[in-house]
């Protein structure tokens, strides 16, 4: 057989219908195996994470702790990049995932844009409504502790405070402030708000606000809260001898009188519970709203700051706090394992020393 003949023979072999059919079915089988969900075996969950950030990891830890051990979990790390995140979300869309967990704003946004049909839970997103979240296939757990709950705590810790000051950017936090106004009214508090559209306005706005209020309430607003502004806010409030009610235990540890925040791992556990129910029923079990409040909150007190300000927190409140710091340095005296039940009933008055 000449080389030419051999070539022709090879070609004819390759073009045999049986071989072609075989190749076709082989390819088809491979694709079908790839696209078929793992028939009734373990459930598959995809987790999209915005960035490498400790609270996100804590939430994922809480989430996975609620799932059956055999659950297959694929984690996609966006590393802060939305573009790459969209590509990851496309892959999640084409995967056989039963549920998606999106942790952080960027993860939730790429899930919103690319994942339409898979039940998706998001958490640790600051202002979800401002970003069109949640979409119909989503349910979200809020990062902010509801305003009424925060104000109730504030009133319990500093009962003599009647006028609460709040700085915010109307482009970012109007929705929250509107709810806060209603809550303050119901609790008999006077909410004094000041709008800021530029961080550079902070010194002037803050100095004008502090003499008019009993307590400064800090909320997560990226115009007001920056890495540079936090020390300034805390120090200036101390200068004016005004207590600060913050949004994270870090703030209470470093200069705020008290703070109320979410426990990230607990939020993850809450999401895990929703995922478990979704896997069981095949669809997201809806409560009244697709945006739900965090199940448990975390109260932190700084007794050193309280002492300096002449506040004597009610021992019951101290007992209910998750974290109690003795001074402004990192002196955590105690960390409760269990979250507090309720502060509503604690009415014994502490006093504000002039």
């Amino acid at each position, binding site marked *: 057989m000449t080389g030419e003949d051999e070539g022709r023979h090879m070609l004819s072999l390759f073009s045999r219908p049986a071989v072609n059919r075989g190749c076709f079915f082989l390819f088809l089988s491979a*694709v079908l195996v*790839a*696209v078929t969900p793992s028939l009734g075996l373990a459930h598959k969950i995809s987790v999209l994470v*915005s*960035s490498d*950030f*400790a*609270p996100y990891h804590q939430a994922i830890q809480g989430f996975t702790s609620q799932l059956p051990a055999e659950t297959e979990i694929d984690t996609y790390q966006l590393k*802060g*990049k*939305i*573009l790459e995140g*969209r*590509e990851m979300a*496309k*892959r999640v*869309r*084409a995967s056989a995932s039963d549920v998606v967990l999106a942790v952080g*704003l*960027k993860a939730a*946004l790429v899930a*919103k*844009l690319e*994942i*339409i*049909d898979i039940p998706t839970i998001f958490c640790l997103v*600051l202002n979800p409504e*401002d*970003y069109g979240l949640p979409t119909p296939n989503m349910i979200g757990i809020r*990062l902010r502790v509801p305003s009424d709950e925060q104000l109730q705590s504030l009133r319990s810790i500093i009962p003599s405070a009647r006028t609460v000051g709040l700085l915010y*950017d109307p*482009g*970012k936090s109007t929705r929250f402030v509107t709810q806060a106004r209603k809550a303050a009214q119901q609790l008999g508090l006077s909410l004094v708000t000041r709008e800021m559209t*530029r961080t550079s306005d902070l010194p002037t706005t803050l100095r004008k606000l502090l003499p008019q209020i009993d307590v400064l309430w800090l909320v*997560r607003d*990226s115009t007001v*809260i*920056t*890495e*540079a502004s*936090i*020390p300034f806010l*805390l*120090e200036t409030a*101390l*200068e004016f*001898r005004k207590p600060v009610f913050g*949004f*994270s235990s*870090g*703030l209470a*540890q*470093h*200069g705020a009188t008290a703070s109320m925040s979410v426990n990230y791992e607990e939020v993850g556990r809450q999401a895990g519970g929703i995922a478990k129910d979704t896997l069981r029923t095949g669809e997201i079990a809806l409560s009244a709203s697709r945006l739900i409040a965090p199940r448990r909150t975390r109260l932190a007190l700084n007794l*050193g*700051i309280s*002492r*300096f300000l002449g506040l004597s927190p009610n021992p019951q409140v101290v007992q209910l706090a998750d974290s109690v710091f003795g001074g402004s*340095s*990192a002196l955590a005296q105690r960390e409760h394992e269990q979250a507090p039940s309720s502060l509503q009933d604690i009415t014994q008055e502490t006093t504000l020393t002039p």
Partner: protein
Amino acid sequence: MTYWLAQCQLRDVTRHLVWLLVLLMPSIAKAAEGTPTPPRLPSNISAFVQEDVQFLQEETVVSAIRREQPISEAPSNVYVITAEDIRQSGATDVPTLLRRVPGMEVMQSTAGVYDVSARGNNQLFANKLLVMVDGRSIYFDYQGGVNWRLLPVTLPEIERIEVLLGPTSALYGFNAFDGVVHILTKDPAEMDNTVLQVGGGEFGTITSAAVYSGTRDQWRYRLSTGLDQAHEWRNRDALAFRAYRGNAQVGYHFTADSKLTLRGGYVATDRYDGPFLRGHRDTSEPSFGYAHVQYTAPRWLIHTWWNRIRDDWDLRSQPPLSDFLSLTDPQGVPRNRGTSHSYDGLAQHTFPLFGTDLTVGANYRHTTVDSNNTNGFQSENRVGLYLQDEWPILSSLRLVSGIRYDLSSGREVTFSPRIALLYRLFEHHTIRLTYSEAYRPPTLSDQHLNVLNTVTIPTMFGPVSTATPVIGSSDVNPEHIRSYELGYQGWFLAHRLRARVNVFYNEISDLISFPGISNPIRARNVGDADVYGGEVGLEAWVTSWLSGFVNGAYQDIDQTITTPDRRRGPEWKVNGGIRLDELPTILHGLSAELAVHYVSAFTQPLHNLFAILAPFGVTAPSERSNAYTLLNVRAGYRFWDDRAEVAFSVFNALNDRHKEHPLGDTIGSRVLGWLTIHL
């Protein structure tokens, strides 16, 4: 930069001192009063509160996609080429990427020259497609067209390329005649600090880029530079083009949604084997510089930009005609040296109106050219005013409307409307009916060109030369397109499969050209063409690691044009691709893409001189270009925590040697190796 950093550090130190003073002042006072000492805050408090701040920082870098719609609601007529598509394609240039969009016409004449248009309206020196980078036109206003080798952007910087087919002047302004290619670059916050990419291989091909970007407080910045080159397809030792690029961008974010961005850059060439026209095949060394200031806010867009194009053409006739035809300026100089400047200003505001958002805008452009081929210095002014709105008529029916009023120097007013009706058949299935018009007024070159075509014919009495002036004219109507389009988009299989179908009918009138059938040869309107056809496409995401696409386009042309300006193009084009990425288990890191482009045979009219000079021994090439199939392959492997990738790509892996224009080079295959590093 060092000075700036030093300033920042100085500011930080000062700031901390001030805080310390603020802190200490009450302490001193209270101590004097015998009251308790205020607690000291830790000096490194910033480090402790970073966690609190990071939630907020997430918000500051998502403004770009804040208003983006989920894929199920995305417009059906916009084709998007993503950064991932670019990476996986192994393409060294944007036109190669555009081949995968159904309805796009891409014609490569030489290693350096691409002509790109849409829906059967392609030509040499194509001038009917608007190309933009970050909202700034890079269309050469003074002579029309785009030089694809002078794109002021490197490939790793590109976030996505949006392609919109059909006349879109009402949305995008001047020159959006056949469609728009909009190149959007990445936000510096989305990029790794440093990206280095180099690709090189056969035919002297080098493509390289170095991009440095970052953020600091409210500032974002990016610097990029690159070198690209390739050798001739017809002579692998001869340089076809070499381009050097440098771009800088700095942006200041006032808020999460409003920012001011400054951009500037320069592209220089020391060789470019074009422009490529019917009669001549020049070589040149063009350069392109720009500056762009852009302010964006939720309801505002204000920008101003400047483009400078410098041309230096060595005018040469097409090789079969070189013994007979010479091209010169009126003084007999066989060069075209000129500089053109375009200055553009645009202000746009969006008002709420009866529950809708009405967008109103004004645009002014001033273009100048100073060339030995255009009677010296020439200039023109253009003013455009536009309105756009979207009306929800029913829950399932929306009307998207826009109209643009244009006034160009010495011309009659033109109105370019665009109306689209979008009807949701049922969830995730939409039909779109669009009517749109656009105009392309004669360019400064169309109006003021002044060159000499000298034809020399050998006779028994010696050579006889006839010089024919080629002269621009202001007495021509703007080119006009009226388009009717019906489109469908549907999503199937849990959004794993997207189907798109479009049919269109375009009435094109008053095409401008310089038909060589008179003396002098003057710019004039040469006739009308009706183009009709359609596109159909499927995109599939089969598994998390396997995706693909297939699409096809058909078009036919009826026309009254009898000169060589006749519209001609392939009737059929079929594209398909398959991609493997993020493979499971041990194959993680491997990726591969295979893309195939089939283009049916077509004819391209040649210069009249080929027929006229046939008795003198000029052999006219066939007007027919055979059908061809391009198979482009790329495979890559990512390692070092996905921060580095090595890859190889093969352009035209089947080595289907073909011509995309009868006078063009025979295009072969080319193998390249790539290395990309993210630091």
